């Protein structure tokens, strides 16, 4: 695979630049899939004014890289990029961005979903909500654990 990026950043994610880097990674790319995980304006029905994202430096990158590596072993990827934001993120802003490139669409779709499913459950990031008069840590979702079943 020619292009592979895993990055954690405090800054807004430039999806255009990230997508371009993946699309132009070389090889015979015929399909590029991107996923943007966006901060919603409410969490479990309560309005929030922002999310605060905390991570375990070093381990977060390592976990994501290991799942990008596993995706490369399962599908013929030509490039992949994962950028995760930390710090304060307002509704409408992107929390995580994944881009995958392959010769054909199935591999690109599957790899992006695989990377996201594992990122959600195994990469050490934690969300705290701001607003609604209180701050609270977001609970992990059982649905996210269940999503892993199909990759087993």
């Amino acid at each position, binding site marked *: 695979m020619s292009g592979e990026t895993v990055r954690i950043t405090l800054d807004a994610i430039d999806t255009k630049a990230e997508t371009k880097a993946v699309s132009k990674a070389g090889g015979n790319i015929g399909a590029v899939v991107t996923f943007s*995980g966006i901060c919603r304006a409410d969490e479990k029905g309560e309005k929030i004014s922002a999310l605060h*994202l*905390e*991570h*375990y430096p*070093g*381990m*977060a990158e*390592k*976990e994501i890289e290991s799942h990008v590596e596993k995706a490369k072993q399962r599908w013929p990827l030509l490039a992949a990029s994962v950028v*995760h934001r930390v710090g304060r993120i307002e509704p409408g802003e992107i*929390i*995580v961005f994944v881009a995958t490139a392959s010769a054909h669409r199935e591999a690109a779709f599957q790899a992006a979903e695989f990377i*996201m499913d594992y*990122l*959600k*459950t*195994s*990469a*050490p*990031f*934690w*969300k*705290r909500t701001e607003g609604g008069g209180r701050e609270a*840590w*977001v*609970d*992990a*979702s059982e649905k996210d654990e269940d999503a892993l079943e199909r990759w087993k």
Partner: protein
Amino acid sequence: MKIVYFAWLRERLDKAEEDVELPSSVETIGDVMQWLKTRGEEYELAFDNPKVIRAAIDKTHVRPEAKIAGASEIAFFPPMTGG
């Protein structure tokens, strides 16, 4: 041994990391959690339900039965909610 805490564990203990001298009887991650609970009320509260606590040794996920021999950094944190 360096121990690091994240999210609400960090908040409840009011510390992001600490260096502790573990007794030689403490051999597994589960033992570390049990031992930490003896260190005060805030630890007892934080580690009250071990099922909702995840652990890592040297930045790799491990189960409670994992041996800590050779570890240089142990981490405790709630289930992850990134992405």
